[in-house]
């Protein structure tokens, strides 16, 4: 039998020596607990990363081309849709295919962030009930997993851009801060939906339905310019929060202008989302283990 580690060794790694957990005592305590959840989670970055990678690895274990099935299926979807829809919307195929490729890949990311966010706690009920782990681990795991999937799909965008002779410019770099905003939004929405869906098991289906409708109401397969000449339809874009969120990343990639107003709106939407999710997570953090 191997020797036990020296007591000194485990004194060092014991991150938190002293702790007290009391019954719910109001908002001060709740936000304090959220803070320590985030802090402890940050220390587990290697665990989160490994968990997210193994999610992908296990999903495609034994498969010949592995996660590149994601790339392939996205490519097939875009290839099949592009020609039909370009004709239907009377647009030039050379501008439409890059638009469709970028839109579909980015929307796929947003939509799977949302649907995975719904089950980010309830899917790991055994983990949550079996061991004490900061909740942010499950949230960030879901966001990273989806980001890895996105990276596989970006290959399709690159291929389309090369084939269609569309090039990126210096302005395309503006997509990076937009994407960072998405990561924050992804964490926030997962906290929010994960918490609500742990309690109410009908919400994932409702969210799926909303995302389905949003897919058709948002300029993803059709361009916003198509609405011109259809009076009364502007509100579809004007009051659609997804438009602003999507455009902060999409427009720079497609070399289309991004107005300051759009950026402001995206920031306001994200700010509200973060606020609502922070408050609701703080309120129900202690209940999640009972719910899952």
């Amino acid at each position, binding site marked *: *039998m*191997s*020797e*036990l*580690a020296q*007591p000194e*060794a*485990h004194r060092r*790694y*014991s*991150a938190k*020596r*002293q*702790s*007290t*957990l*009391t*019954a*719910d005592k109001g908002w001060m305590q709740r936000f304090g607990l959220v803070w320590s959840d985030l802090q402890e989670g940050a*220390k*587990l970055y*290697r*665990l989160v990363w*490994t*968990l997210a990678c*193994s999610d992908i690895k*296990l999903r495609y*274990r034994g498969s010949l081309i592995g996660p590149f099935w994601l790339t392939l299926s996205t490519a097939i979807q875009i290839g099949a849709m592009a020609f039909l829809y370009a004709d239907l919307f009377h647009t030039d195929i050379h501008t439409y295919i890059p638009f469709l490729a970028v839109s579909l890949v980015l929307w796929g990311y947003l939509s799977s962030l949302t649907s995975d966010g719904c089950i980010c706690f309830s899917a790991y009920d*055994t*983990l*949550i*009930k*079996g*061991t*004490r*782990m900061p909740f942010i681990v499950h949230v960030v795991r879901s966001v990273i997993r989806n980001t890895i999937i996105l990276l596989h799909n970006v290959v399709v965008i690159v291929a389309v851009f090369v084939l269609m002779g569309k090039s990126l410019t210096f302005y395309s770099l503006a997509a990076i801060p937009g994407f960072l905003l998405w990561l924050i939004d992804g964490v926030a929405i997962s906290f929010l939906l994960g918490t609500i869906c742990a*309690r109410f*098991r009908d919400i994932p289906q409702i969210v799926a339905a909303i995302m389905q409708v949003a897919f058709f109401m948002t300029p993803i397969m059709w361009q916003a310019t198509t609405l011109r000449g259809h009076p009364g339809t502007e509100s579809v874009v004007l009051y659609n929060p997804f438009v602003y969120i999507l455009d902060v990343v999409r427009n720079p990639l497609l070399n289309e202008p991004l107005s300051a107003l759009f950026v402001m709106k995206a920031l306001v939407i994200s700010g509200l989302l973060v606020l609502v999710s922070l408050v609701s997570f703080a309120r129900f*953090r*202690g*209940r999640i*283990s*009972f*719910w899952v």
Partner: protein
Amino acid sequence: MAYLKASDISIDFPLYHTENRSLKKALLGQVSSRFGVDKKSRPVVQALRDVSFSLKTGDRLGLVGSNGSGKTTLLRTLSGIYQPTAGTLSMEGKLISLLDPQQGMNMELTGYENIRLRSYYLGLSKSESQMFEEDVVGFTELNEFLDIPVRNYSSGMIVRLAFGMATAFSPEILLMDEWILAGDAAFMAKAKKRVEGMVQHADILVLASHSPSILAEWTNRLIWLDGGRIVADGPAMEVFESYLPSQDFQQLLKTRP
């Protein structure tokens, strides 16, 4: 100095997914004291009621009680998984809990990969991870099985791996649920030696079990839970005397050296 102190801990389990009216009524109409309503008059199961005890360095506590008496809930509360509905839990020391044999393990990953995951969970440095892996590998003696996914393991092998990972780098407070009994005799002897080593390092053990012989051997203090309340708390053999039917107790005395 490690300590673990529970003061008047109560846990109410919400009964959410039983929205059925008649079931609700049946539950509430029961004379059983376990079902109640919370402040907002939602039905709850009172899983723990005013549980208080305090453990200090060198204490090895056993939990006994019939099924549903609150042993696992208490262990989960002590691990910090459930936030108490009332009361306070305070502790000092690195705590590790072995509640579910598959806890923290990914069944699809290999033994080695799970060991690595665990070392990330513990936040170990590179050299510590290496020590950790060597320690677990040496303890489990699973050898080449560590290269295959854990789902191909027998339940005893899973227990070996889980126990090895939980007790490598001995935690200051170790909580264990009854599934530890799944090991074979050789493993049990080894596990006991390892826990003894741990307790010699001045640490705390809390073990829930249905096996009097294991509890008598491993623990020096017993808490008898019934209906979520502490019925008796004291030295192991004293509590067993009232908890066990007399012939079982006599038998237990005979097996004791």
